[in-house]
């Protein structure tokens, strides 16, 4: 991969994805070979929204490569609270760090930030837009179990505002994957993602219930239906209940079905699924570290060797 920034999954080609995932596998197999590789480098974690998993896994990835991390602290205690623009913030932090990881509530924020700095910018979630590093770890998890071709994947939940879904759907167009989207009608994929899928010639079907498609799936990727999207609490409970899976639901699934979730989950995956062989969401979260190490290695190192 020879790119300055990672802004959206649409910029990733199949060779780009395979290069990162191959490197992640290499790191998994010989972590000590990568320790201290970036000693003296500094990674800035610019999180304008609360984040636990993404921030900590980038932090861990940097430390395992020997790099230091700096962050802004909470938004409430930063200069953002004084009204500083994002453009100014990243231009200042550029002087402190070798790369920036940005989480921001506005769509397009990472793209804009990349226009103001010369160091690599990694989009760690821009509103309801994209979350490409999550997609790389999702693909790593899928590849290690099933490979990435000849795949039937169901993506269920909030498809409209789910940035992990938008990135994953785009990235999967690089592979021979049948994509099934399962959601209430009000939370179907946004027009821009549909356009990209159509342009890429993706094989896509949409459903409002999981039962019809479940037996065909190799992977079921579940996302949280967000309570705050519904003005009426009763409507939320009615809809959310229909997009909840438990061990009983999965009795109709293939034995080797992999269930994934970007986490945090609320109640869309019942605890009894954790005990089944289908559950891979904690392994998926753990994969964030080697995949982000690989990504940092390729961006800080200036490309594949």
């Amino acid at each position, binding site marked *: 991969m020879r790119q300055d920034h990672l802004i959206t999954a649409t910029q990733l080609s199949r060779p780009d994805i395979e290069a990162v995932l191959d490197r992640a596998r290499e790191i998994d197999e010989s972590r000590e070979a990568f320790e201290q590789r970036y000693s003296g480098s500094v990674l800035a974690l610019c999180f304008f929204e609360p984040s636990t998993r993404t921030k900590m896994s980038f932090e861990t990835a940097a430390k395992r490569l020997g790099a230091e991390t700096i962050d802004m602290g909470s938004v409430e205690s930063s200069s953002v609270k004084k009204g500083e623009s*994002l453009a100014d913030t990243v231009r200042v932090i550029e002087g402190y760090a070798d790369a920036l990881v940005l989480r921001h509530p*506005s769509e*397009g924020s990472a793209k804009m930030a990349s226009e103001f700095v010369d160091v690599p910018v990694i989009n760690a979630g*821009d509103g309801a837009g994209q979350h490409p590093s999550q997609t790389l770890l999702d693909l790593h998890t899928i590849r290690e179990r099933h490979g990435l071709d000849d795949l039937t994947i169901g993506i269920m939940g909030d498809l409209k505002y789910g940035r992990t879904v938008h990135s994953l759907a785009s990235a999967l167009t690089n592979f021979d994957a049948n994509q099934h989207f399962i959601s209430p009608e009000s939370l179907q994929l946004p027009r*821009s993602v549909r356009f*990209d899928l159509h342009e890429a010639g993706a094989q896509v079907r949409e459903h409002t219930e999981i039962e019809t498609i479940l037996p065909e799936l190799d992977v079921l990727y579940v996302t949280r239906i967000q309570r705050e999207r519904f003005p009426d609490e009763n409507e939320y409970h009615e809809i959310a209940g229909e997009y909840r899976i438990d061990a009983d639901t999965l009795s109709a699934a293939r034995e080797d079905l992999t269930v994934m979730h970007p986490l945090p989950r609320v109640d869309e995956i019942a605890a009894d699924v954790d005990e089944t062989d289908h559950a891979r969401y904690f392994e998926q979260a753990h994969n964030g570290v080697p995949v982000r190490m690989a990504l940092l290695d390729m961006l800080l190192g200036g490309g594949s060797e």
Partner: protein
Amino acid sequence: MSPDRELRVSKIRNGTVIDHITGGQSLNVLAILGIDGSEEFSVSIGMNVPSDRLGHKDILKVEGRELSQSEVDVLSLIAPEATINIVRDYEVVEKNRVERPTEVVGVLSCPNRNCISNDDEPVETRFAVMADGVRCDYCSEILRDRLAEHIDV
């Protein structure tokens, strides 16, 4: 131009004649040009004039005003068939069809209220022009209908 049409809209000495505007879009074209009637130059508008090519068209004659390229770019999005005639001393010295640009910068606002281009940041809006609409370079939002409502000039 037939004598009948000449009666509808008189000749201008210097300025721009925008012909073959999609019927009903002339007021939006004026909005693009930032003309609201408070300026010193005179404006003639023909709306829903019969047209062999378009069925009905609008036509605008603006005395003492020539269009910039960015104005023509946006104009092309809402009036793709328009022709632009530059008139000097009653003569048409330049006659151009509008061409769709590959992008429009700083003239449309993004309909996605959560787009970074709608925050208080030092950037101009930027849209890629597609076959049937435009797409925000920042948030990827696609805008196909009612472009004129998002003109920000």
